[in-house]
């Protein structure tokens, strides 16, 4: 992160509120994104992710607060020139080919189609370029949408659930592309439900719950902040169950295994206690809190507050 990118964030959202007929869809949300950052926005359905995207794009007017997109007002010509967007679900005209769709969007963005067409190759659609979009699979359509978002090297890309409904390989491709474009200095803000797949692929995580921003940090710090225990499961023979449970300080017994929590600080000590049991232990499962758990922690904490 350089001085200049700190001075001028790609996207700045400051105290934004939006109410739909009495229901607070977005409630006092503030954050800013810098060049080259990959940021994931998490939240349950109706948490306000799409509303926030639409406010940033200038489709919805905010009730309060301030948004600047590369120094310009959201929805202004300057802001739109530097921004690309992939909506949650898009059905391109089925009778057009992938190449025609991409040419259309390239022209709208003032980019020469000849420069944009290699993007089809980058998203793995080179062979399907001349086939009608109607024959595409869901993953291919999503990749076509992503190619559309990459036209003309935008400085800010907003992706609304880009991997929903994709198979693991397609997801991989999507995240590889996101990493690649972020490496070129583009800021990527994506929303997602699929939490676990984001772990290694984002720089920062925003968690929205009921319209409020309840977390904004890198995952490791969020994890520490949540202080979630590590869950251990020790497998043993039924006749040794009571003994194992006792020597490990209790825990839930289910037939052939003992389950218990331990804090991150105690992890090594507990593991050595387990190995001290020697042949009594058949197997051990160590389950560190996943992004799912961290997410559940923050959104339920916000729910209790409210």
């Amino acid at each position, binding site marked *: 992160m350089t001085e200049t990118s700190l001075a001028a964030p790609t996207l700045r959202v400051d105290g934004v509120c939006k109410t739909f007929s009495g229901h607070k869809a977005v409630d006092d949300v503030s954050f800013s994104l810098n060049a080259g950052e990959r940021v994931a926005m998490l939240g349950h359905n109706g948490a306000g992710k799409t509303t926030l995207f*639409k406010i940033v*794009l200038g*489709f*919805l007017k905010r009730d309060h607060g301030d948004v600047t997109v590369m120094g310009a007002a959201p929805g202004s*010509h300057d802001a*739109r*020139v530097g*921004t*690309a*967007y*992939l*909506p*949650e*679900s*898009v*059905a*391109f*005209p089925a*009778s*057009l080919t992938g190449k*025609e769709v991409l040419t*259309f*969007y390239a*022209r*709208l*963005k*003032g980019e020469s189609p000849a420069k944009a067409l290699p993007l089809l190759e980058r998203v793995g659609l080179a062979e399907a370029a001349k086939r*009608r979009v109607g024959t595409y699979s869901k993953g291919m359509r999503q990749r076509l*949408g992503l190619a*559309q978002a990459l036209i003309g090297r935008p400085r800010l890309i907003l992706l609304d659930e880009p991997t929903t409904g994709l198979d693991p390989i397609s997801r991989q491709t999507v995240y590889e592309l996101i990493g690649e474009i972020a490496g070129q200095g583009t800021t990527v803000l994506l929303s997602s439900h699929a939490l676990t797949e984001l772990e290694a692929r984002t720089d920062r995580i925003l968690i929205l719950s009921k319209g409020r921003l309840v977390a904004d940090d890198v995952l490791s710090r969020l994890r520490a902040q949540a202080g979630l225990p590590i869950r251990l499961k020790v497998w043993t023979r039924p006749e040794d169950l009571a003994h194992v449970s006792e020597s490990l300080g209790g825990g839930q017994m289910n037939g052939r295994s003992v389950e218990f929590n331990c804090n991150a600080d105690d992890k090594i000590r507990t593991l050595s206690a387990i190995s001290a049991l020697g042949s009594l232990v058949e197997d051990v499962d160590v389950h560190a809190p996943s992004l799912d758990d961290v997410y559940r922690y923050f959104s339920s904490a916000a729910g209790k507050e409210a």
Partner: protein
Amino acid sequence: MFSRIFTVAGQEIRIGIRNRWILLAAMILAVFSLALALLGSAPAGTLGVDRLTITVASLASLSVYLVPLIALLLAFDAICGEIERGTLLMTLSCPISRVEFLIGKAVGHTLVLAFALVVGYGLTAGLLVAAGYGSLSGLADFVRLIATSILLGACFLATGYVLSSLTRQSRTAAAASVAVWLMMVVLYDLALLGALVANPSGVFASDVFPYAILLNPADAFRLFNLAALGTSDLMGGMAGVADALPFDPLLALGSLTVLAGLAMAGSALLIKRIAP
């Protein structure tokens, strides 16, 4: 600006060709106009009127029904359909203004309609000329018919955009389009005729009726075309009013243009208010 408008227009035309909309519209117009020309021209010989001109008179009545229908079918989906498919969000996040987008759609759809009209009616005109029934003045009538049909179509395209921006679901817009077609093309005339029959010599017949015709693009279109043919006495029915009008029939053409402009302006205002 123009490149973006032409991009949108080009996409509409391409879609029109791909899903065979253009072909279908041209075929419908060709089939109906050929049927009218071949069946309806039987009495022309005895009347000594150019057969092309007679055909144009029947085609004017055909246009009143078919052109608004084709235009509404082309237009009803233009905005709410794109909202439903999510493409409007995507398109409008590009640096294109909403009015540019709307004008692009209108240009594309108008060209689709114009192509269908030129091919459909042109086929009939060509056939009649080839069969030796045509004259130069008759051809001029044909050109006028096609040009004003395009204007009539533009009126109803813009009406379709208004309906499309007022509704959020294309099914609702389709239903509204059918209702508008029925009202403007069928019921409006019936209501006017009913009022006329009820009181043939009152204030309504002399002062309200002629202007009521001007307010409906379908009627204004028919009035202008039949008056321009000068054969209204041959045609009977509503066409007969052309002679008794308190104004120049050109006013009907003006009215058609103004109505198209108003509907287009209305849809431009509406599309600016949409949150896709």
